């Protein structure tokens, strides 16, 4: 036995519940599992509570608190299902709507300061909501405050062991049940085994597989790849949410790239093409005077103008506020005006460039109402979960589902391990780690650095599997991804540093990104219609026969699909209206 192997054996962990990904969902799951008596190992490839989508979310959190005006779980659910265009798993959506208020109030007990007006939590309108339902933390600080509150809370539990810079690269399954995982310790480039009787995958979405995205750089679809490789199913992978007016230029730091939308509605920002003409009316909508064309039409119109050679220098549209008096701008934007000025952006003198970008993934790991996959002991939470948002997510539901699904997954996993015996299989673990070490330690001097291939994959996905798709483009994407898998991916050039070997980290990430991208393209080809966030230019209409979900799994290493009826709910179970 080499000394390296001895190190690895000595460093093996043994816990009840492993949680992969420490954003809001993972941290909430850790708290719930620890409260229920389980020992927890909470890991993140970045730093605990500082990566992923949560810290970036500057906007709002939706919950039927009925603090501003009458509301109900049923009404929130109606709005959620309407956005989902018939494809929501209604049980999961109802869970978000019914448990959301409890979690929002629990977060307040833990110290988050939701914006308040007198005794009431302030709730505002957001697109798609029929009442004022969205709470927030001032000023544009919702996500960072959520992350900070949970980071503080998890330190109160001695049963939660936290490890940063520790990337789960494979879930280990023996006889249909989770037995642990293998993770890369980035600090010294070692693969370690983790023995766990249950695992929660809460590693977020896949925005990083797209060249244009609004999220952190560390969500490359690992959650989906980990679950798929472990034998779980994915659902609705074709539904990537593209935010229509994400910020493109000038370079803006310190703000969420999706920040423009509320201001556009509030004060009326004009969308102009590269020739400074209004253009939304050319695409069957009106924007004049109101500036509220729907998200899908705005995205379509912007990309069509770009395609016709009438885009802005960075391939988008101008968002122009110059027709608004300076004092009105300051009143509407508040302190944001100064953050913009610090970036050299003076809205009274110049337009900014905006365009569609990947923002969130509706698809994901297929689970039941306890966040259980079909693999015993394997759970999902947060954006990693698929199905609750159907074909399109209602604004404000992402952080809510992180809380709700995290709490549910943590409870269910803790409950699960009470009955489960360890099924640790040393030989299986050894084989898996040897296979992964071959991948992570084999460098080809003539090969390509994984970050370069990541960049190419991001380009392919943006150009060929982006907001507007065709069978032809998707087929080309599929062919190139398959080619990379059998050629470049097998000959990566990896640096030989021991500490923070970013090439090796990128290589494992790329391996997952390829799988996630492949699933998106496969499902997008399979759905020959346009619905919600999935728009096929060769099939521009919705097909009522396709009010079904595509469920993907791996069989002999290849993706296969079956169509399933969306899970429906017995609505008599929902609560009565709530009054402020």
């Amino acid at each position: 036995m080499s000394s390296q192997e001895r190190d690895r054996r000595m460093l093996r962990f043994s816990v009840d519940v492993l949680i992969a990904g420490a954003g809001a969902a993972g941290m909430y799951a850790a708290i719930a599992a620890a409260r229920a008596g389980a020992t927890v190992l909470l890991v993140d490839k970045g730093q605990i509570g500082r990566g992923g989508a949560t810290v970036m979310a500057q906007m709002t959190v939706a919950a039927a608190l009925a603090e501003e005006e009458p509301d109900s779980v049923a009404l929130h659910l109606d709005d959620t299902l309407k956005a989902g265009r018939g494809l929501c798993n209604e049980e999961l959506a109802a869970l978000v709507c019914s448990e959301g208020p409890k979690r929002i109030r629990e977060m307040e007990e833990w110290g988050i300061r939701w914006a308040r007006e007198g005794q009431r939590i302030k709730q505002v309108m957001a697109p798609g909501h029929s009442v004022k339902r969205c709470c927030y933390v001032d000023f544009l600080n919702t996500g960072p405050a959520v992350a900070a509150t949970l980071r503080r809370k998890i330190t109160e539990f001695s049963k939660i062991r936290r490890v940063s810079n520790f990337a789960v690269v494979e879930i280990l399954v023996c006889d249909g049940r989770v037995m642990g995982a293998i993770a890369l310790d980035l600090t010294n480039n070692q693969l370690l085994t983790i023995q766990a009787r249950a695992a929660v995958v809460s590693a977020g979405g896949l925005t990083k597989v797209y060249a244009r995205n609004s999220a952190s750089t560390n969500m490359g679809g690992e959650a989906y790849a980990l679950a798929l490789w472990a034998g779980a199913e994915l659902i609705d992978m074709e539904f990537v949410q593209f935010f229509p007016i994400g910020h493109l230029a000038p370079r803006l730091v310190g703000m969420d790239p999706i920040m423009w939308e509320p201001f556009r509605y509030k004060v009326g920002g004009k969308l102009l093409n590269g020739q400074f003409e209004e253009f939304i009316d050319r695409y069957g909508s009106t924007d004049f005077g109101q500036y509220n064309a729907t998200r899908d039409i705005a995205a379509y119109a912007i990309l069509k103008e770009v395609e016709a050679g009438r885009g802005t220098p960075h391939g988008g549209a101008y968002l122009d506020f110059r027709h608004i008096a300076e004092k009105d701008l300051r009143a509407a934007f508040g302190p944001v005006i100064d953050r913009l000025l610090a970036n050299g952006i003076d809205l009274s003198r110049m337009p900014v460039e905006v365009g569609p970008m990947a923002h969130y993934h509706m698809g994901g790991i297929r689970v039941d109402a306890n966040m259980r996959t079909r693999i015993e002991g394997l759970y999902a939470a947060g954006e990693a979960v698929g199905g609750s948002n159907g074909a399109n997510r209602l604004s404000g539901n992402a952080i809510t589902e992180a809380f709700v699904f995290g709490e549910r997954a943590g409870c269910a996993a803790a409950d699960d391990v009470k009955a489960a015996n360890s099924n640790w299989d040393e030989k299986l673990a050894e084989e898996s780690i040897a296979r992964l070490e071959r991948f992570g330690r084999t460098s080809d001097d003539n090969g390509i650095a994984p970050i370069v291939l990541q960049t190419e994959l991001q380009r392919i996905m943006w150009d060929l599997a982006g907001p507007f798709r065709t069978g032809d483009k998707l087929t080309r994407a599929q062919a190139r991804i398959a080619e990379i898998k059998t050629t470049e991916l097998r000959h990566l050039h990896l640096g030989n540093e021991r500490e923070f070997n970013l090439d090796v980290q990128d290589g494992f990430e790329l391996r997952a990104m390829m799988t996630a991208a492949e699933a998106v393209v496969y499902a997008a080809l399979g759905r020959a219609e346009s619905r919600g966030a999935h728009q096929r230019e060769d099939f521009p209409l919705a097909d009522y026969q396709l009010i079904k979900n595509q469920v993907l799994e791996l069989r002999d290493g290849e993706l296969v699909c079956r169509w399933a009826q969306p899970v429906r709910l017995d609505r008599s179970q929902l609560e009565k209206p709530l009054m402020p």
Partner: protein
Amino acid sequence: MSSIAKLRVKRGSFGQSSRYDDFEVPYEDGMSLLDALRWIRIHRDSTLGIRYSCINANACKTCVALVDGEVEYTCMVKLKPTPIRVEPLPKRRLIRDLITDIVPSDEKL
């Protein structure tokens, strides 16, 4: 409107001798130092050691380094035509290149 930024980056691991590498990075006004460091990883040297996550929002607080002698978040520093010197934080234990030990001790293996 594209200009060239000249970066001088301190490289090396803890306990080893260090060196400075020079990079020229094309940029547009408004681009950040972190954008340039990421560009170097893709186009020049993928082994350059840096930490970052959010890249856009100055929310993750992990991209910190010494820039022309001042402690800065590299995402908040704008590129400029005059040379920029980038070094690891002096008061944290060096790990490699610009990566220093900023992780809380109870989040380590």
